């Protein structure tokens, strides 16, 4: 992601995607620290998704970048140019909001052309560009409708077209899919990614939906209490979480008590390598992914070292989630649905934990339970 994608402007001129740099960005609301000396760099043409629980500072980061709020301290640059004190109107950024933000008194075409009109682009060119953008989002047939005459998903598409029409240096997406139903959401998510790659624009995407973030982003930034816990490609955030917060927030984790010794942790007789090899020896809580747990029947040749009773089987489509009671604790396993068809509540099974590197957290107080991540 270090190369700079080149896109074409409406005049056919080449335009290079820009780097966005935020350094030491802080923002307080009274005594509440929304953002605490945040450092974040978006490489040219990259899509970074900021993920985190409510109040973690992800939307504040985006609003500071958009210029809709002022930072208490810190520095923002776009393409090497300091824009920290530049007003929102002059930042050259396209933004799509969580709430439907189309201007109700304008048609779809007028909405898309609004930014161009402010830039005094002549009417014919403006119209052509608006139609091009509507074509890009698949809505050129709806150009003369008013926002209230189109669906929520279409409104967000138009908002995306409107944001892109001005050929911004940076695209900002503030939970643009959260008001949509699941199917439209998945479709539009893929469409946003397709368009972002096609246009090659540097993009910051804020969401509280981890599936959305993992699916769409080049890198995912997990935020907590105003700072970045981890910024890495989705696969790394998921499989090698930097902190126990990331491990628990992204995906599901079983919290199992174990003992650290010599860079490994022993959990119920299974020895697992640690992500952080220098963890001091002692009692810990190991965070084990459900997909690292496999089940087999008692008579199976692949039977594992642990034995338990199935409490519940939850059908999720291609996969199923099985909760197993170990007597003094419960553990969750995620299996292919085809492997889970013979399991039902009350079945006796054996468990094996795959030796993937795991993270541990210091206290074992709340261990031995499947912890559901909060989005």
């Amino acid at each position, binding site marked *: 992601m270090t190369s700079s994608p080149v896109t074409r402007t409406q005049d056919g001129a080449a335009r290079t995607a820009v780097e966005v740099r935020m350094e030491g960005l802080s923002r307080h609301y009274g005594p509440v620290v929304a953002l605490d000396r945040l450092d974040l760099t978006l490489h040219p043409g990259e899509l970074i998704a900021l993920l985190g629980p409510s109040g973690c500072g992800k939307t504040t980061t985006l609003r500071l970048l958009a210029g809709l709020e002022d930072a208490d301290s810190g520095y923002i640059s776009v393409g090497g140019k300091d824009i920290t004190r530049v007003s*929102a*109107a002059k930042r050259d950024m396209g933004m799509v*909001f969580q709430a439907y933000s189309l*201007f109700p008194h304008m048609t779809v075409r007028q909405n898309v052309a609004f930014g161009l009109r402010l830039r005094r682009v002549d009417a014919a060119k403006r119209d052509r560009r608006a139609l091009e953008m509507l074509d890009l989002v698949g809505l050129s047939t709806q150009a003369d409708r008013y926002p209230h005459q189109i669906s929520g998903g279409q409104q967000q598409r138009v908002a995306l077209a409107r944001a892109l029409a001005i050929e911004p240096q940076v695209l900002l997406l503030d939970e643009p899919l959260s008001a949509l139903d699941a199917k439209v959401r998945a479709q539009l998510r893929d469409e946003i990614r397709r368009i972002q790659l096609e246009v090659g624009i540097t993009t910051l995407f804020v969401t509280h939906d981890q599936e959305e973030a993992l699916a769409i982003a080049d890198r995912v930034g997990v935020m907590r209490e105003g700072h970045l816990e981890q910024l890495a490609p989705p696969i790394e955030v998921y499989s090698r979480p930097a902190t126990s917060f990331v491990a628990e927030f992204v995906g599901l984790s079983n919290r199992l008590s174990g003992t650290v010794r010599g860079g490994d942790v022993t959990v119920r007789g299974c020895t697992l390598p640690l992500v952080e090899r220098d963890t001091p020896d002692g009692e810990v809580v190991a965070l084990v992914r459900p997909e690292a747990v496999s089940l087999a029947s008692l008579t199976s040749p692949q039977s594992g070292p642990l034995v338990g009773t199935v409490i519940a089987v939850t059908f999720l489509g291609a996969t199923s989630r099985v909760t197993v009671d170990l007597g003094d604790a419960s553990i969750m396993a995620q299996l292919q649905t085809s492997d889970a068809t013979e399991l039902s509540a009350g079945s006796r099974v054996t468990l094996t934990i795959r030796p993937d590197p795991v993270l541990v957290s210091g206290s074992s107080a709340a261990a031995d339970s499947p912890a559901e991540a909060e989005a």
Partner: protein
Amino acid sequence: MAAIAALGETPAAASASHPSGMQARRRRRLNLFRYVVFTVFGLFFLLPLLAMARFSLEGAKLGTWSLTAWREITSFQSDGVPPLASSIEITLELAVITCVIVLALLVPTMIWIRLRVQWLARTMEVLCLLPLTIPAIVLVVGLGPIYNRIQHYSVSSLMLFWIYVILALPYAYRALAAGLSAIDVTTLSEAARSLGASWFTVIVRVIAPNMREAILNALLLTWALVLGEFTIAYLLLYNNLQEELFSISRNTPNAGVIFSTSFAALMFAFVLLLILSFVGRRRGRG
């Protein structure tokens, strides 16, 4: 049960059709109630108006028709009372000036407060609603010295617009506040700002057009207030239409004139408001 079965209707179907029959009866009763209420209130408003119109057209002999009272209004001449046409003109001018000033003051201020200084919203509301709590006579006493000074320079009745703006503030404010709360001002303005709009553009081209209905309502209320205002003009010794009609009815022995002036005043305001409302809303739809 046998009868139901004979009709080919199951008990379940019978019970299912029962509520729809009840609903139809309830709907009929509701419609009847609506017509009765509409008729009663229609008569309540229309009968006095019709009686007034009929009386203003009463001839010299009982049961005859005549336009004498109406002719007397238009041709009325008296010392210190300007012609009727002049009063109508002044009242219309006052209405236009007041509407323009009220909207020019309130629309941008209210949008700005909503967008940038929300902590001032309560103060703004209190200030705008304050005139409602002050009786007209108190306003006149308070503003008397100022108007004495104004009268010293022999300016026209148009100077009444100062006080009419104050009087119209509560009504216009309420109408505009309702319109403003119906739209997501923050998101719309942020969207416009991110596209490069200045604050002026945000207010004029994004927010205000979405408040068209509210602006029209504020306009109608202000207009109605100015057309119907009598007390302050009378107490401050200015002439507007209401004051003129009062002078005519007071200075004539013909009782028909009193009714014709009252009827004329009501109709004048009613027709103007109707035109304004019709034109504004038709443009809104277009």
